[in-house]
């Protein structure tokens, strides 16, 4: 910081504290920030309640975001990490593929199950045709939380413990696979249903 610069700032400071006249000073564009800061400091020191304190961090955040990796970015900028890459062994094709951070199947399954909570069933009404649709009392729920929730076992047999653990993992895997399969099948099903509605819709759109 140069001497001249700090002298100027003293002037600014003086102005804001009401100790100088505006016509004594010439402001340049690059002093805008300093200007704002003194104005804010002045307000804080004088504790003006009607003035909202506003600190501008937008520039910093924007700068940060610039360097963040981008996922599934459909811009043509191929230099960007993790953006759509149009790679193909034959070279010059134009097929979209998203550069996923490829998780193992295991992790994908765990993620699809992790959102689920296990519901205690002892409160469910017995099921037969007559109770169909009856109001169900409040359920006890236990979050799965990435691992299969289960009552703590006091088994002293490590082998038995391992077998149980293995079974739990199998169950969790299966449920994860079912959830994902259901999603996929439901999507494909829309295909069949939409075709039936195609005519009605196109008639509507042409209006």
């Amino acid at each position, binding site marked *: 910081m140069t001497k001249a610069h700090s002298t100027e700032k003293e002037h600014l400071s003086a102005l804001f504290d009401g100790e100088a006249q505006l016509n004594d000073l010439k402001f340049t564009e690059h002093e805008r920030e300093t200007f704002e800061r003194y104005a804010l400091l002045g307000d804080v020191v004088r504790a003006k309640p009607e003035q909202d304190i506003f600190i501008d961090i937008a520039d910093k955040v924007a700068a940060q975001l610039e360097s963040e990796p981008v996922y*599934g*970015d*459909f*811009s043509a900028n191929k230099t960007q990490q993790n953006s759509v890459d149009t790679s193909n062994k034959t070279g010059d094709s*134009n*097929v*979209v*593929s*998203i550069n*996923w*951070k*490829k*998780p193992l*199947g295991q*992790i*994908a*399954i765990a*993620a699809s*199950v992790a*959102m*689920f*909570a*296990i*519901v205690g*069933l002892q409160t*469910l*009404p017995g*099921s037969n045709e007559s*109770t*169909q*649709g009856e109001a*169900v009392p409040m*359920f006890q*729920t236990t979050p799965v939380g990435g691992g299969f929730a289960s009552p703590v076992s006091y088994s002293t047999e490590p082998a038995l413990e391992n077998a149980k653990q293995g*079974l739990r993992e199998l*169950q969790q895997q*299966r*449920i*994860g*696979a*079912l*959830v*994902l*399969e*259901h999603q*996929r*099948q*439901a*999507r*494909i*099903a*829309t*295909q069949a*249903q*939409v*075709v039936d*509605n195609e005519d*009605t*819709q196109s008639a509507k*759109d042409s209006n």
Partner: protein
Amino acid sequence: MRTIALFLSLLFVVTPVYAIEDESAKTLLENMAHTVHQSNFDASFVVVKGNAMEPYRWRHGQHQGTELEHLSLLNGAGLEIIRINDKVTYFEPQTPAYSINARSIAGPIPDVLFHNINSLEGNYNFILGGKGRIAGRSAQLIRIESKDNSKYNYWIWLDSQSSLVLKAAYVNQQGEIVEQLQLTNVTFSEQPALELIEMSQKEFPTPLPQPEASTDLGNWQIGWVPAGFNLVKSDRHNLNLNNELADYYLFSDGLVEVSVFIQRPLSNNRRSTALTSGATTVFVHNAQGFDVSVVGNIPISTAKSIAESVQRPSP
């Protein structure tokens, strides 16, 4: 107030405000579908399931007669869904990308609401609810109420001005919200986003073959499904992810889909398990010598009844 309003409307030309009051819930829903298909917008919404939350970005555009849509899940490994006219491509971390022919994305909002709500009339009533303020805009509630109490109701709040969906929720028969979706911001623009246009010029996978007309496997008897659910398909196939074999049945009532899987038992003498995530229920029932799993956006008691009604066919 109402009398005055009516009186005034007799005296003067009826303004659009009164016209809206006369519109039926169904018309408003049709307007919503129209808006979504015709507008250029960039929206963000959040889906809340219990204490889990999923943020999405949803963009749509019309470019030289081509409809472009992109839905992106912003947390975790993510999910990208891209629609160009009637071709929808799903990018997911655990499976290769695949395309299907469909006029709307099968995302968190039931896709039937974007094309043909008439198909719901048999099973649901459309009821005009109250007005409120959602996402800083005036909103009109429409309740899609199930005609029987074995299913959830779907409530949807539409922007009074643009008819765009601002909020939606699965509501159980006790009137409690089990899963909800809320727009946090939306920007309409004259032109579609440049990224959408660039995206549309890429090549996507060839759509999967048209699913065959549903035929009943006949391997199992599914004794009970809620009224209004029809069999969409049934087959025997290996699951994508863990390659387990399953006899598979898919039912739909137009709004929600329910899958029934019948598989070899993992172990004997296990208790049935129910899991929920928002409106989605997974119910695993251990029958004699086979496991039945029911997955779908239905109440637990309904999933339980379906699962327990599955039997081997009587010879």
